[in-house]
């Protein structure tokens, strides 16, 4: 790293601020970028956790528009406006509420480019938050990224930190296709030292945040922070972890993941979503095929047990993949 690079100007911001800045920069750069969703305008507080705060004041009520509680109409309006030449950032307050707009997302946003033979495209970003651990119970906490990754035409992005959130959001907004942008509530509020200027981070590229030789841990979103903690714990025992933050779930960065596991021979995949039929399955299935005979241990998957998100704190904590769980899984690959 050059001296100049070491002197990058930084400041402490949260993911909330990072996404806010990214949208603001995109709106500044392109008058066609518009925002809609429930309570997103400043009259309604700029979003329930403030992700869009200040934007309507700065860019006008026409470009940042609060909606009724009407998710089908929100995504429909986003799709139509996108076909009409706009780049739309639509908020669905919580990921579980995509269930009332699935037709718009899956049958329309995802398919229109293909079904029209490339005549119409849908450059929209659908932002949503989710995650267990804040006592929201069964209907407000699910991670459903595997559904969207299974849906051709959608991209799925899940940042773990402010810098990535900003850079990925910048790319998501200029991307010509629909992007599901999934934000974990638990990771929202922690400030991180972040470059003041963040360049767009290309979608589909994972980030190797730590090189290592014994085992590769692949994760994303808030669980990636736990994976990082697990790697630190393992390092104390002399276990060298290569850490990959997937960042984009679809299309996922097969090349980076395969290269890493080819080197380490061992892999652990951790996510918050239910393990069964989750994202980890696709990665494990790919690795066993691409690296047959080269793996030193079975690919381990960690995810939530096969159950709804419980309310009671003790159960809720047990539901979420833990640092200890990741450590144990990594150890198991070395046993």
């Amino acid at each position, binding site marked *: 790293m050059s001296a100049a690079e070491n002197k990058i100007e930084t400041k402490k911001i949260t993911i909330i601020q990072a996404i806010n800045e990214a949208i603001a920069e995109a709106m500044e750069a392109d008058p066609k970028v518009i925002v809609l969703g429930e309570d997103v305008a400043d009259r*309604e507080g700029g979003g329930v956790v403030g992700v869009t705060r200040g934007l309507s004041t700065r860019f006008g009520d026409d470009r940042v528009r609060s909606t009724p509680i009407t998710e089908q109409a929100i995504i429909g309006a986003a799709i139509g406006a996108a076909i009409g030449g706009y780049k739309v950032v639509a908020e669905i307050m919580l990921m579980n509420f995509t269930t009332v707009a699935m037709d718009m997302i899956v049958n329309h946003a995802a398919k229109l480019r293909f079904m029209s033979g490339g005549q119409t495209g849908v450059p929209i970003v659908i932002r949503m938050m989710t995650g267990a651990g804040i006592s*929201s119970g069964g209907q*407000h906490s699910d991670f459903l990224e595997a559904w969207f990754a299974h849906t051709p035409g959608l991209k799925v992005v899940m940042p773990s930190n402010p810098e990535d959130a900003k850079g990925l959001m910048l790319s998501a907004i200029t991307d010509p296709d629909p992007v599901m942008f999934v934000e974990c509530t638990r990771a929202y509020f922690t400030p991180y030292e972040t470059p003041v200027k963040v360049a767009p981070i290309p979608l589909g590229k994972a980030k190797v945040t730590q090189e290592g030789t014994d085992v590769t841990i692949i994760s994303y979103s808030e669980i990636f922070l736990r994976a990082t903690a697990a790697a630190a714990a393992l390092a104390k025992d002399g276990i060298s972890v290569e850490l990959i933050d997937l960042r984009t779930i679809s299309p996922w960065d097969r090349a980076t993941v395969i290269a890493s596991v080819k080197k380490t021979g061992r892999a652990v995949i951790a996510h918050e979503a239910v393990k069964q039929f989750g994202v980890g399955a696709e990665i494990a299935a790919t690795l066993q095929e691409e690296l047959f005979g080269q793996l030193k241990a079975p690919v381990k998957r960690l995810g939530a047990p096969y159950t709804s998100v419980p309310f009671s704190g003790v159960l809720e904590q047990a539901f979420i993949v833990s640092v200890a769980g990741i450590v144990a899984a990594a150890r198991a690959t070395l046993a």
Partner: protein
Amino acid sequence: MATTSYATGANAAQPDAATQIEIYRRMNLIMQNDEASRKIIRSGRLMMPYYSQRGQEVIPSAISVNLNDDDKICTIYRGIHDMLAKGVPLRALWAEIAGRVTGTCKGKGGPMHITHPASGAILTTGIVGSSMPIANGLAWAAKLDKSRQVTIANFGDGASNIGAFHESLNLASLWKLPVIFVCQNNRFAEHTRYENGTSVDQISKRAAGYGMPGITVDGNDPYEMYAVANEAINRARDGEGPTLIEAMTFRFFGHVFGDDDFYMTKEEKSAAMAADPVPLYRAKLIANGVATEEKLAALEADIAAQIADAIEFALASDMPPLEELTRDVYAEQGVA
């Protein structure tokens, strides 16, 4: 059938004295319970998303005195008042809110998903609009059973703009289901004022689009609320189909605990609080000679004691054991 203004004047049903007092008891229970809830969250002893019902006490109290134990209700995250009015026991309710194994749902549902079938309290949903389609199903079962049971579907003004509202009212009218749609119009949906989310000045006007009677009522007036509910419930029981009731009210304390109300004017909030329906009705009962100050004070003290007992019970209860995490996924627990 067009939007009707009915249940008024001489034809309106009136609650007898005992019922008037019972309505008050339920209102006071809801009010005290709400205060205790906010207090305990403020104290840091319990953490949960809490949707205060303060100001909306009349609606479920005046409705539920017209219901039998086996009548059903479906409600929403802001639904603890509906649950209490329907008779969900305080101890189990508080234990659920506290995430204890002694809760209605063994601590697995929490405040947004209170369920207590023994009281007819079938569903609390966290998804806006979703109480209605399921209420239809309960009503359909009752109709098939010829049981004369009715189902109440509670929802907010904001919910009247989502697709499930439309599908539910159409189906209920078409099938003449014994269901009553109760829109608790507190004039806000989270931070959005009624008129910024809803394209019609009265939600009850939408009933005409389903050939269903619709009425807007002062949901803070126990007498009017009772009369309107009574008529709608009787119609449903008699097989004459559903009604849309828009009950006008106001929530005193923001959408969710911690919300700072910036989107309300001070004037409208203080006007609503000045017209607090609980003390107003209390005064009326005494002025009309329906109850004495002493009687109401005793009733209130009794409620306070019950709430204190329930909180104590809840906090002394065990957390659910870890096995509960994967129980009740399927009926044969432990599968998969």
